């Protein structure tokens, strides 16, 4: 599942916000913060792991979750690239507008 789809679900976004606020949380800590059943939350954690939005460290019996910022940066990168493409196109439009302005002011004389 891609970053965007993983982020589309509100529970998963809440989990990420909690992790970002706390630095890290154990799976049990995360379960406790939701009314939903642990298996349901576990499923969301799995999606977040697969999208590489979180990473896990095992400490004894505990699984500690951290936010992994890289996919978010990836997303930002795509948007920047898209904006750069649009900018290139709009620079061509700038040239068209300049030419039109010149043509119109000429025809007034």
């Amino acid at each position: 599942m891609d970053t965007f789809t993983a982020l589309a679900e509100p529970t998963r976004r809440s989990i990420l916000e909690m992790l970002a606020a706390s630095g890290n949380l154990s799976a049990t800590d995360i379960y406790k913060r939701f009314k939903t059943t642990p298996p349901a939350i576990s499923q969301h954690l799995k999606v977040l792991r697969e999208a590489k939005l979180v990473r896990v460290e095992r400490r004894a019996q505990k699984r500690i979750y951290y936010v992994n910022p890289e996919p978010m940066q990836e997303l930002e990168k795509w948007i920047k690239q898209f904006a750069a493409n649009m900018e290139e196109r709009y620079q061509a439009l700038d040239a068209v507008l300049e030419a039109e302005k010149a043509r119109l002011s000429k025809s007034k004389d």
Partner: protein
Amino acid sequence: MANKTVVTAEPSKQELFITREFDAPRELLFKAHTDPDLYIKWVGPKDMTMTIEKWECYEGGSYKFTHERGGHKYAFFGVNHEIAAPERIIGTFEFDGLPERGHVILGTTKFEDLPGGRSRIVHQSVFQSVADRDGMIQSGMESGVNDGYEKLDELLAEKLAAGKGA
């Protein structure tokens, strides 16, 4: 003064916004979107040949244009829902290069008046799903096809440098 393209696409939403200012009155900006002779001069990527096959610039009219390179032809088409000179264009947009039909985008482009003979475009695209939106952002389809990452990297570097200087 540098006119900067701003793209806003929030995570998990089905829409994206593009805004940019221009050193021209909005009547002219509107004309550059509705007059096919002007439109063809700026919409297509430089390394592709653009052809306008249909251009019915009125409410309920449809349009179709193609970009061609190396024997590959991509078509973009849709229906004009509202053409309100000089302030607004609303219409659908679809790309035939996708694996299946039916991924239609609803576009609203507003042309705003600014002082000093300037104007601003505020464009909103609404997609059928978050995946559709993200797919388009990732493919760079809105501007046709990427001219290659190297060129883009340069452009990004320039933009970043310009942004820091401002």
